[in-house]
């Protein structure tokens, strides 16, 4: 018997759905439409100044060196920062979760602390940590004999600085996920491996890593999605400089859209960003399904917070 449309379920779903439809779905579609026009400050003054220009924004975007720079910067951040962040998180998880570790909860809390701090506040603190002559980082490096690096003024070091800050801020989040994964590996697998004469290193390679593969994929997807949306760090630390070496796609979108009011061009950037994120996610999912070992769909859905609150709360 088909459930009637006037079922109470519909009423329960409607408020949330209405909000999401009105304030999420509609703007997304509107963005696409906006990207096909040359909506700008003149158009804000007088709508008659608006023109539909088809794909011209995209063509201009492809010709804009600033776009390519932003794209390169974002991909640099994702490709370098992502794996580094995952590696650091995994290492921390291994350390915290090790059998011999005491005061597990304390260390877990400490490592997680940066995750909950407000991103802007952190960026403010790091702006001073990264100062060339009076910053904490260079002071610390000086102790081990490394000369002062102009983190925020040298185009070669600015993005690494931001990567460093992002890793510091985020590694606790993924660490917790890894810990959960580690704890779900049955002890007997390790015992069996030990009986076979496997040392710690081999246990890691042959028991831990394979069992954790789904977790790795999950964490990497999460991290990549979050990192593609890099905005607050360059906004507070460098405003995209020096020499636009930290200009990210979202920052470019913000500048085009809210500084210059080139809404058409900014919407095009947003759409391109979405396409890239979608592409990266599909690639990773495809790679994973090639490996085999899918869980059932609804469960995956519950655990992939892409752009919403927790990604904002914790990962960003």
């Amino acid at each position: 018997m088909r459930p009637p449309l006037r079922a109470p379920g519909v009423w329960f779903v409607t408020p949330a759905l209405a909000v999401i439809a009105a304030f999420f779905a509609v703007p997304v579609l509107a963005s696409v439409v906006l990207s096909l026009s040359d909506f700008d400050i003149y158009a804000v003054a007088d709508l008659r100044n608006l023109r539909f220009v088809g794909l011209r924004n995209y063509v201009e975007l492809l010709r804009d060196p600033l776009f390519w720079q932003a794209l390169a910067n974002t991909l640099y951040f994702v490709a370098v920062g992502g794996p580094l962040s995952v590696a650091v998180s995994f290492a921390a998880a291994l350390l915290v979760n090790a059998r011999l570790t005491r005061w597990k909860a304390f260390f877990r809390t400490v490592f997680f602390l940066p995750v909950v701090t407000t991103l802007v506040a952190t960026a403010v603190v790091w702006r001073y940590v990264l100062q060339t002559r009076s910053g904490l980082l260079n002071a610390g490096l000086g102790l081990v004999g490394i000369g002062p690096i102009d983190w925020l003024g040298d185009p070669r070091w600015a993005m690494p600085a931001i990567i460093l800050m992002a890793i510091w801020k985020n590694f606790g989040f993924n660490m917790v996920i890894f810990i959960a994964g580690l704890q779900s590996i049955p002890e007997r697998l390790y015992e069996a491996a030990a009986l076979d004469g496997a040392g710690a290193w081999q246990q890691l390679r042959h028991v831990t890593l394979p069992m954790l593969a789904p977790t790795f994929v999950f964490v990497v997807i999460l991290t990549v999605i979050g990192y593609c949306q890099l905005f607050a760090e360059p906004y507070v630390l460098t405003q995209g400089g020096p020499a636009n070496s930290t200009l990210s796609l979202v920052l470019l979108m913000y500048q085009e859209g809210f500084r210059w009011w080139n809404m058409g061009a900014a919407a095009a950037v947003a759409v391109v960003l979405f396409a890239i994120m979608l592409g990266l996610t599909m690639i990773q999912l495809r790679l994973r399904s090639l490996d085999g070992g899918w869980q059932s769909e609804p469960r995956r859905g519950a655990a992939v917070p892409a752009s919403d609150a927790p990604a904002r709360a914790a990962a960003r």
Partner: protein
Amino acid sequence: MAGAGAGAAWALLVLGCGSPAAEGSLELWALGREGEVVREMVAGFERRHAGTRVRVQQIPWSAAHEKLLTAYVGEALPDLFQVGNSWIPELAALGALEPLDEWIGRSASLRATDYFPGILDTNVIDGVTYGVPWYVDTRLLFYRRDILAGAGFREPPRTWTAWVEAMERIRAQGRARYGILLPLTEWQAPVVLALQRGAALLRDGDCYGAFSAPAFREAFEFYVDLFRRGLAPGAGEIQSANLYRDFATGYFTFYLSGPWSIGEFGRRLPPALREEWATAPLPSPDGVKPPLSLAGGASLVIHRGTRRKQAAWQLIEYLAEPAQQLHLYRLVGDLPSGRRAWEDPALARNPHAQAFWTQLQHVRSTPKIPEWERVATKIGRYAELVVRGAMATPEALGALDGEVDAVLEKRRWLGRCSGRAGAPPHGEAG
């Protein structure tokens, strides 16, 4: 259930809340340091006009331009606000500003003739005045007199050649690490030098870039050369966090800045250095033509859509009074836009300010187009790229022309080009 009721009531209450602007109070947005001190100043206004309250909101310069435009789009502009005068063409094109000619004409206290012509001109778009200059800004040299004297120069340099020679000698003698600090992403320095060379930044009715023209290229090369010769550090914008300490320790000798630095240097430099720095008008390229600088400054403008134009105008008149202009000067170091205020001994006998007085007689405005801020940012960007060695000058200027042409495309489509090919640069003064 009671909890739910309370929750619902809370939510409705919060959702109903809007901006807490009280009825009958005038809303003023002020930028930067002025924003912080103007609250003191409006207290006097409130006393004089009992019943009018003024709410001041301070906005940092770095975010001001985007905040103003966002507010315009969001229909949340205040009654009156401060703007950098290079933004006036943009806001006027949007129809956000109230034309002020009539108000000025009818005013008993405010006279158009009182203002520096070059400065007032920046507020006039297509013959209509949109703003009242609040304080003036132009760029000139701040320098360490002792370092310069030590290298054998009693007087500040008058020509570009002498200037470079002075900096070279200072560096050779090890008196300072660098000759001049030029923040990399700022466009003011290359543009000032270009204006001095007589370069028109845009051509054909301000609808195309003219950056590949010889005049601009020479000025640009001069600018880049300062870095190449090691006379200016390749420091970025963030490095200016240590500006005052670096000036004090002789990290650099010259600094291109505006009047606010008079106040800032006075406040932040150690007392021992108080006598050791001075201001001087810019050197000119050949020593013959008077040295030009930027006609900068901030103006007060009235939002066209406000219902409190009368009150807003009264506040402008108040702030334009010589007494208030001097008050601002004493608080922040901003130089008055009205010439009457300059007769006060505080300024007439202030050597730092006098250099500005001289320079202000020879100022030129940047092209008065809505897209100027964008164009300026691009100039700064390409300047930085060339200085960092990422691009060669001809290539960079060609690319700059291309980008600027693209930015101005809409302007051409709208038919706003004045159509006078080869028109002289705007804002010719003195």
